[in-house]
């Protein structure tokens, strides 16, 4: 079974708008990561947030983590057509196994 559920499953926005994706997970975590996948390609790591962090930024990306609600959100500001991809959250458990458990992903379409 997968750890996370992502919401929405699909998102379509206009270029320049912000995109927000949410991820919920079930068990305690060491960290949560967001990955991007372009169609037919491998995943690319975007950002990692640890369980003792609440917010993290990287360029146009902003990630928040609420461990009490077991949820995270990824915000992409000023979206571009090139941001069109699937976005996955993945968690690493507290057992330090470093095994990633992935959510089902959000498909983002940014219309030019």
């Amino acid at each position, binding site marked *: 079974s997968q750890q996370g559920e992502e919401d929405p499953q699909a998102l379509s926005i206009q270029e320049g708008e912000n995109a927000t994706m949410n991820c919920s997970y079930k068990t305690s975590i060491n960290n949560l990561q967001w990955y991007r996948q372009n169609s037919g390609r491998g*995943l690319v*790591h975007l950002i990692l947030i640890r369980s003792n962090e609440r917010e993290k930024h990287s360029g146009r990306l902003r990630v928040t983590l609420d461990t009490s609600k077991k949820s995270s959100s990824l915000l992409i500001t000023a979206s571009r057509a090139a941001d069109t991809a699937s976005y996955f959250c993945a968690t690493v458990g507290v057992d330090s196994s470093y095994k990633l458990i992935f959510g089902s992903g959000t498909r983002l379409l940014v219309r030019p």
Partner: protein
Amino acid sequence: IAGITQAPTSQILAAGRRMTLRCTQDMRHNAMYWYRQDLGLGLRLIHYSNTAGTTGKGEVPDGYSVSRANTDDFPLTLASAVPSQTSVYFCASRRGGGADTQYFGPGTRLTVL
């Protein structure tokens, strides 16, 4: 260019045949992973290896085996392929030593008929 390579890129296989998917990394990463991705789903871990000489089972290990004879290579074998193993397979690696980021290969698209 450093990274992970996978071979073949795609394969159509008859049910019952044996198949080995190859994965090689040149980053000297300690840990390596095999995932499968089915349509509309996230990735599920099949097997992993934290260091050369060791392997472990992931979430969906049945029907698959792996070996880790050296740091660079982590082949995935389907001893007797079944149609439910039709999927896209991704190999990934992680440096180890507390680093958490995984680096993914381009994937192998496998169809079992």
